[in-house]
């Protein structure tokens, strides 16, 4: 799908964001041997994103930056410590399990390897029927019809319904995993590292599948990934996270053309680009992210930042909206 078509899809949608995250926090307690709390691990610390209907928003960052915790907090897998999640106009921050069941069909989470979440002792048919039995009030024939339609949409032959997961390839398992999510006709899907560990040729077909499904079913994706080249290709907007905070958020084009936060700059510089300059010549970022259980004061990136000033240790910079379509959490950004 071209960028133009994507823009059209978004424009056609309503103005109200499908998902609104406001100052979401998820802290994990760090406990000593006697189970006494000795500190907090701030995995997600005040994240605000509003997701428009029909868009593909990327959440990128290195391991330990809290991007998966964010996805899981949205799904209610982790109870948020603070903040608010509004989905389709309803506050879903603290739902009880029975209340959230209805929601589940609208908001779906796809694990890193959806194929691995298939029951090895169930035929594909049964795995695909299961979500419909739980959530939808359909007779067997209607369910069968729905399953066939979805199977066709993800590009699998009908004969696969009577196979076991181990009889099909890894790429096909991922397709079944996706089909399983799609049978409930969700409006928003959280994709957690959906292409990691795939060979490039398989990755390419999976990406094309995501884009096809996005168009066919008018889906909204929250795309969690560490692979910037994939994110660049499919996302409209991206949010860059570092140690639980968003350091930069904006349109993909702007961020890739003009990254303003020093962390975004170094993250983009670290991606090998075939035919471009070699990172081995001029990569400057040193060291590794500090321990998230013991964060530096002020800006979290200052310990590795080459532009760091003394005042960076004092205030934790909020996101600045000084540029159209781009917000940056750095007072020194220009």
């Amino acid at each position: 799908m071209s960028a133009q078509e994507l823009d059209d899809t978004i424009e056609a949608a309503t103005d109200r964001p499908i998902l609104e995250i406001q100052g979401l926090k998820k802290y994990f307690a760090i406990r000593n041997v006697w189970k006494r709390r000795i500190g907090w691990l701030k995995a997600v610390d005040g994240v605000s994103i509003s997701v428009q209907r029909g868009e593909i928003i990327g959440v990128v960052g290195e391991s330990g930056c809290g991007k998966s915790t964010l996805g899981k907090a949205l799904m209610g897998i982790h109870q948020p410590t603070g903040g608010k999640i509004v989905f389709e106009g309803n506050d879903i921050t603290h739902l009880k399990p029975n209340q959230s069941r209805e929601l589940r069909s609208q908001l779906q989470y796809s694990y890193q390897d959806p194929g691995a979440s298939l029951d090895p002792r169930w035929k594909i048919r049964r795995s695909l029927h299961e979500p419909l039995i739980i959530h939808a009030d359909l007779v067997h024939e209607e369910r069968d019809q729905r399953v066939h339609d979805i199977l066709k949409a993800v590009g699998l032959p009908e004969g696969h319904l009577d196979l076991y997961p181990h009889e099909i390839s890894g790429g096909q398992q991922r397709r079944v995993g996706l089909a399983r999510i799609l049978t409930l006709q969700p409006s928003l899907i959280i994709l957690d590292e959906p292409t990691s560990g795939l060979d490039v040729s398989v990755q390419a077909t999976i990406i094309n599948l995501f884009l096809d499904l996005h168009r066919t079913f008018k889906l909204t994706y929250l795309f969690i990934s560490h692979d910037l080249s994939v994110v660049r290709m499919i996302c409209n907007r991206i949010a860059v996270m570092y140690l639980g905070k968003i350091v930069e958020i904006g349109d993909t084009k702007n961020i890739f053309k003009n990254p303003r936060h020093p962390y975004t700059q170094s993250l983009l510089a670290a991606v090998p680009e075939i035919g471009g300059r070699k990172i081995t010549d001029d990569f400057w970022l040193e060291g590794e992210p500090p321990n998230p259980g013991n964060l530096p004061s002020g800006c979290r990136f200052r310990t590795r930042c080459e532009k760091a000033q003394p005042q960076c240790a004092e205030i934790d910079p909020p996101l600045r909206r000084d540029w159209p379509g781009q917000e940056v959490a750095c007072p020194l950004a220009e």
Partner: protein
Amino acid sequence: MTTKFLDVRDLEVSFATDQGIARVLDKVNFSIGPGEIVGLVGESGCGKTTLARTILGVLPENSARISNGVINFDGEDLLQKSSEELSANIRGRVITFIPQDPFTSFNPVFTIGTQIMELMRWKSPRRDDPQYVNSLGKILNIYPRARYKADYQQVLEQLREVQLPEPEAVLAKYPHEVSGGQRQRLMIAMALLPDPKLIIADEPTTALDVTIQAQILKLLRQLARDRNVAILFTTHDLGTTYEICDRVTVMYAGQEMEAALVDGFFNRPSHPYTKRLLESLPNQEHGIEGIPGDIPSLINAPPGCRFHQRCDYATGECSVSRAASTEIGTDHMVRCYHPVSRPKTQTEAAS
């Protein structure tokens, strides 16, 4: 390619499985010049790890069989050597290894220092130096004190060279106390300590984040240049290949398809498989396309070129025999009856 320092010819390796014999390497040719960084690229299951392990001589003894071929290393055939000779003089001394996963490669119950000094005890470049050998120590199998001191100094120096802060403190730590990037730096240091001529790096950056990967690649390239060590770099990531390698060999289902200098490889891919592989990379200019079909099973694999079932250019002869290696440009070999002639690539279109 004037000098070949490592030269693998017609190597055939099979594995016995319950379903039959899988020929994992099918008459593979591969070479590295002195001080060169060569990327061995391919998707999972293409045999790159098996090739690396065959060179190291660490194939599983009861299931793997080397049925054909030579591995010439510095003028000697490694396949003719006994396993004692390999482990005493070759493996860990002139050929060392950097594993993919720095997390599982250390023993968690010993300090890093203990483990590095254990390596130095057996593989130190001073091991056969008469200055440090004492006959009683040799009989009693004791690590000579004088050599220990010299080795320890070398370790500290090496850790500084791989930019680990406070090397003494690191040596006293346990593996879980250092981060993934630091563990990979330690692995690189350990691979360099015996003063090798060839390092086999098996996907050394796959488990790391991009910024750490960039640091490690930079370090590895710089050290290889300084020490004039050749590196065999296996990876499935074409981006890192572009960053670090001088030459690239592409493998598919146990056969080598194309070998070229990095520039020729990315700008003028000639094998249909290479072309499709490069087209499946995410990019901005045009849509991406995967390769239809699946990798054939290596058990009773199709004869001829193993890519022919998925290839757009395949003709009858492709399913009968493999094309001989043809030189189509400077240092650019391709094994295909129908090499693609100068396709326009992403980089050319951009420039």
